[in-house]
């Protein structure tokens, strides 16, 4: 049985509201936020980046189980905001959790689904017996150009899933991916901010991939929406995942627990994985979960998951629940936001 042995999430403490952002650019940010279904987005501290967030999430995952970190045979870090263009995030994480040196490590990139791609790789390595445990991480400090619609949602956060086949708290019954060449969102090498195809990002990109992936996966598994207690869809804003859920036949009660964008914005590679963490924070044995990530460019990774009895022995309380990070937030204004993001030009020494 291959599945999730442990999980951990992390969201930076700072928040900024759409009203605060809109005030700077002369638009009604409050209404705009409502149209996006976003109340606030997370903002990383001045000394946080994709690597520090990945480490925090990985350490939270390890606090919940007593495994030897040296038994982790693979670490994959998915992000679209790796601090280095060349030098892997995964190596720093490996060192910080004490997994070095007998392991393989690499970074993945696939917009918002780079982390779930890591889950699939770990599943394969565990299933084939090549490794005992694999750690898949999705972590981002995403950037929206100032004044761009993305600025209202692009946020920071990350999650880590420990994949193995012993003491599995949630079995991954199957994974399926749907991938095409769709230029809805991209960032060229050396560019600070991403570009996107505006309205083009909706129908042919997000909805086509998420809906097709979910439908095909349920078809393969012989399941229907009502067989799932929880459904998590990629959440670039608060509206898309609800609409995708509705189109597939899911109800809001199945979506709510895994929908975090309204409170923390779009954490990109962290988004679906943090949603899954939030669901696992409350899930009971036998609960079935459908999780569908989406990455621009474009593709969707779907996962059909069943929570096991092992979750009753699992030490969730050893690390903060996602709810803790949502409740324990501090709002900042746009001036502090630009300071935290190092956008104030300082005097040269």
């Amino acid at each position, binding site marked *: 049985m291959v599945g999730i042995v442990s999980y951990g999430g992390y969201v930076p403490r700072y928040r900024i509201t759409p009203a605060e952002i809109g005030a700077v650019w002369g638009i009604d940010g409050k209404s705009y936020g409502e149209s996006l279904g976003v109340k606030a987005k997370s903002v990383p*501290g001045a000394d*946080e980046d994709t690597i520090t967030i990945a480490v*925090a999430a990985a350490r939270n995952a390890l606090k919940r189980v007593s495994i030897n970190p040296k038994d982790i045979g693979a670490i994959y870090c998915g992000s679209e905001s790796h*601090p280095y263009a060349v030098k892997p995030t995964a190596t*720093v994480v490996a060192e*910080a959790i*004490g997994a070095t040196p007998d392991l393989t490590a690499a970074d993945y990139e696939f917009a918002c689904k780079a982390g779930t791609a890591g889950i699939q790789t770990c599943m394969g390595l565990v299933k084939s017996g090549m490794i005992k445990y694999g750690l898949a991480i999705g972590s981002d400090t995403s950037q929206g150009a100032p004044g761009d619609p993305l600025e209202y949602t692009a946020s920071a956060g990350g999650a880590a899933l420990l994949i193995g086949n012993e003491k599995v708290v949630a079995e991954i019954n199957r994974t399926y991916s749907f991938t095409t060449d769709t230029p809805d969102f991209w960032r060229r090498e050396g560019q600070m901010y991403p570009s996107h195809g505006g309205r083009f990002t909706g129908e042919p990109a997000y909805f086509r991939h998420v809906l097709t992936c979910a439908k095909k996966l349920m078809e393969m598994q012989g399941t229907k929406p009502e067989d799932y207690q929880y459904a998590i869809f990629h959440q670039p804003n608060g509206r898309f995942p609800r609409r995708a859920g509705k189109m597939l036949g899911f109800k809001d009660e199945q979506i709510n627990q895994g929908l975090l964008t309204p409170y923390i914005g779009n954490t990109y590679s962290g988004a679906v994985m943090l949603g899954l963490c939030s669901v696992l924070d409350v899930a009971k044995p036998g609960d079935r979960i459908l999780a569908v990530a989406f990455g621009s460019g474009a593709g969707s990774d779907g996962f059909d998951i069943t929570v096991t009895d092992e979750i009753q022995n699992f030490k969730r309380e050893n*690390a903060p629940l996602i709810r803790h990070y949502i409740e324990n937030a501090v709002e900042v204004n746009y001036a502090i936001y630009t*300071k935290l993001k190092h956008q104030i030009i300082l005097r040269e020494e």
Partner: protein
Amino acid sequence: MQIPRFWRQIPNRYNLIGVQCENCKKVYFPPRIVCPDCHRLSIGKMKQYKLSDKGVVHSYTVIYEPAEGFENQVPYIMAIIQLEDGPRITAQIVDCNPEEVKIGSRVEMVFRRLGEDGKAGIIYYGYKFALVKTQT
């Protein structure tokens, strides 16, 4: 900072790895080669020791004139932290306002950026601390 020096310190800076004198059981951070109490008796008996990542604020100060690279964090808090295992270490306390910190506040290690060698250079990571109430 020189890259080789930082690289050698990675275990200390990432995971609070210190040493314990097997003669008197005292724990040191940063690591020492010889125990200052036991001198010759400690030679070859200083063993790696992973310190607890929890402690309390022994003393602290608020910095308004930043060290290079910390300009965006002003005002920030530097503290002497009494770790559960004995040693006191100097570290930054993050994710809170100065008025939230008290002597005796419980803190927990977090992993953060310590600095960088300019925009093209290496990024240094390591321990800082955060108030336990903001962490758990």
